């Protein structure tokens, strides 16, 4: 293992070891400053705003956001920047300015230490606390598995170690400081990791724009490539990397708009408001003043994360089209005569010196959209005709071998200087570990504090139970990482699925609990259960990509991927578009028809007593 690791260079190994030593030291610092369960669960409610803001941001942004969604931007273009806007405006500004204060205040007044406990105590319902804890226990490991798989595959390819060994190393190191240091250990390490991520992404942004000739020139180069959009993407509405997909309803050509706006942008952009591991951050500070001070740090941090990843992902097309290695072959279709853009049948010389077509992995001819750089003097014989061999450069997804998640790493490897590779390695390690540590902590508190302690009131110490529960949570996440590794669609969408599920199931009860004194316990229970069931129904039977991957829908529809397969656009609509409005309506209607909550309890929650 070590012999292989040496191929990555001694400088890289020293940098990674220094980083891990810092992480372990900060984890130990968290452990040494953890004196009671409130320290372990909510960081003692005295966290510095700088640490809180970076911890919130670093937890929010995983490798999935940088590499996964950055790759999506490489394919779909800058339209995914709507997610960045929602991340900043909703995920930071709305969350911190309007939700953070009441969540912190009510959480502190009710002595709540977790998101499920906050909801449970606000509505005086043990059922809510246990049910939300169970949802976290069942579905957060899927989100954690997505981060674990991404991080482990990255470590595996970077250091040449076996995937299973990488998974074990990655899990054990992260688990060690979460189990020992609690939320203090998690937040201290998050702050370090967030700082590394910020530096790495800012260098990436500046370098990417400089490399492509500046902001306007880079955008213009990308705009001029609109003809190179692959045919299959054009069919679903892709109009270029600096344009929105075609908008409308009732035709396949509008599918991409609904995917970009509902699944990618709304699912994650709105779902962030009800993320258990993020809401608990609001309960770690002393007052609203600390939240106010965290807002600018959070806003700039998120812009530097998703804003940079999505912009660079899209711009990578212009880079590869200008500097990528050249493909040779014959033109099968002219796309834009004026700009010299065409579809190329990729060819290579065989042993006899004759040009022959290259076949793709699927056995079909390998074709690529290119900008022609040279028409050579060589020719090939095709169907008894002589055609010229041309050379040209293509788009990101072609250079990434059709794999979305390879676009950003491929760009960093080819476009960035070698020294940046070490910084980017640490950036991705930080992104993965900061998200994973919070997931482990939240799963652990979900199992320990919200389920076990509620069903067994005469329990032992909270911290001991939570530590045991974190171990259980980690084992589940690791098992899911083995189980789902072969389901790329589920893993690629695990982040969006979990965020959307949290929004539909928890958001109406959470917002209602913070702002509406008339919101009743029955309304909260109905809203949570209906939101959960509606999301499950849509994911299992309607949303084509997820439903098709899970497979239940195919058994009841004779092999179709959606029960609405015959109706254009519906199978591309995210569950949040349907489940969240239903959940809100249920919350309002049930609140109206049920008895108002006990006034004494409401006064306790809102501080009028």
């Amino acid at each position, binding site marked *: 293992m070590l012999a292989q690791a040496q191929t990555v260079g001694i400088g890289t190994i020293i940098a990674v070891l220094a980083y891990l030593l810092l992480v372990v030291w900060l984890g130990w610092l968290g452990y040494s400053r953890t004196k009671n369960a409130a320290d372990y669960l909510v960081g003692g409610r005295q966290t510095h705003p700088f640490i809180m803001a970076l911890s919130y941001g670093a937890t929010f942004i995983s490798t999935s956001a940088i590499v996964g969604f950055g790759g999506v931007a490489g394919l779909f273009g*800058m339209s995914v920047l709507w997610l960045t806007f929602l991340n900043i*405006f909703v995920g930071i500004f709305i969350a911190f300015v309007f939700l953070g204060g009441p969540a912190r205040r009510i959480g502190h007044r009710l002595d709540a230490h977790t998101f499920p406990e906050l909801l449970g105590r606000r509505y005086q319902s043990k059922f809510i606390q246990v049910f939300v804890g169970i949802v976290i226990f069942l579905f957060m490991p899927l989100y954690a598995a997505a981060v674990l798989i991404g991080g482990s595959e990255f470590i595996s390819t970077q250091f040449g170690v076996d995937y299973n060994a990488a998974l074990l190393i990655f899990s054990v190191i992260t688990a060690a400081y979460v189990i020992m240091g609690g939320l203090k250990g998690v937040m201290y390490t998050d702050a370090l990791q967030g700082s590394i991520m910020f530096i790495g992404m800012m260098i990436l942004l500046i370098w990417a724009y400089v490399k492509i000739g500046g902001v306007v020139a880079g955008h213009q180069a990308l705009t001029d490539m609109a003809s190179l959009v692959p045919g299959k993407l054009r069919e679903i509405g892709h109009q270029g990397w*600096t344009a929105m997909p075609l908008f409308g309803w009732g035709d396949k050509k509008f599918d991409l708009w609904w995917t970009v706006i509902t699944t990618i942008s709304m699912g994650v952009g709105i779902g962030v408001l009800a993320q258990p591991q993020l809401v608990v951050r609001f309960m770690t500070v*002393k007052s*609203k*003043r600390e939240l*106010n001070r965290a807002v600018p740090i959070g806003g700039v941090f998120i812009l530097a994360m998703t804003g940079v990843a999505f912009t660079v992902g899209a711009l990578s097309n212009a880079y590869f089209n200008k500097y990528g290695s050249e493909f040779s072959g014959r033109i099968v279709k002219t796309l834009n005569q004026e700009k010299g853009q065409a579809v190329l049948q990729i060819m290579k010389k065989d042993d006899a010196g004759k040009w022959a077509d290259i076949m793709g992995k699927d056995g079909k001819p390998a074709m690529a959209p290119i900008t022609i750089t040279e028409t050579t003097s060589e020719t090939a014989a095709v169907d008894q005709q002589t055609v010229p061999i041309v050379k040209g450069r293509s788009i990101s997804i072609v250079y990434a071998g059709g794999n979305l998640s390879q676009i950003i790493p491929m760009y960093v490897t080819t476009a960035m200087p070698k020294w940046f590779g070490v910084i980017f390695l640490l950036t991705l390690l930080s992104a993965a570990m900061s998200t994973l540590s919070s997931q482990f902590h939240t799963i652990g508190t979900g199992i320990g504090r919200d389920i076990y302690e509620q069903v067994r009131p005469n329990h032992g110490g909270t911290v001991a139970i939570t530590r045991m529960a974190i171990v259980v949570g980690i084992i589940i996440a690791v098992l899911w990482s083995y189980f789902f590794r072969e389901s790329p669609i589920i893993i690629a969408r695990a982040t969006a699925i979990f965020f959307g599920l949290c929004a539909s199931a928890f958001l109406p009860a959470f917002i209602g609990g913070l702002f509406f004194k008339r919101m009743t316990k029955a309304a909260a229970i109905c809203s949570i259960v209906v939101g959960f069931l509606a999301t499950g129904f849509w994911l299992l039977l309607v949303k084509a990509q997820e439903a098709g991957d899970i497979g239940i829908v195919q058994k009841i529809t004779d092999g179709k991927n959606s029960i609405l397969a015959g109706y254009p656009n519906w199978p591309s609509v995210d569950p949040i578009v349907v489940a969240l409005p239903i959940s809100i309506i249920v919350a309002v209607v049930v609140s109206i028809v049920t008895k108002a909550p006990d006034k004494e309890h409401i006064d306790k929650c809102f501080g009028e007593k």
Partner: protein
Amino acid sequence: MLGLQDKWVVLVYILCAASASLCVIYGFFAWNKGDDSVKPEDVKW
């Protein structure tokens, strides 16, 4: 504008920068406001 093809992409590009700026401006003006820390007597119950 800005070399971008579509007015909606121009809009979102500007909105991203504007929302981050809003966060910075808000933080600047609210830096010392909002000390509503919960007192021990508030959680006596």
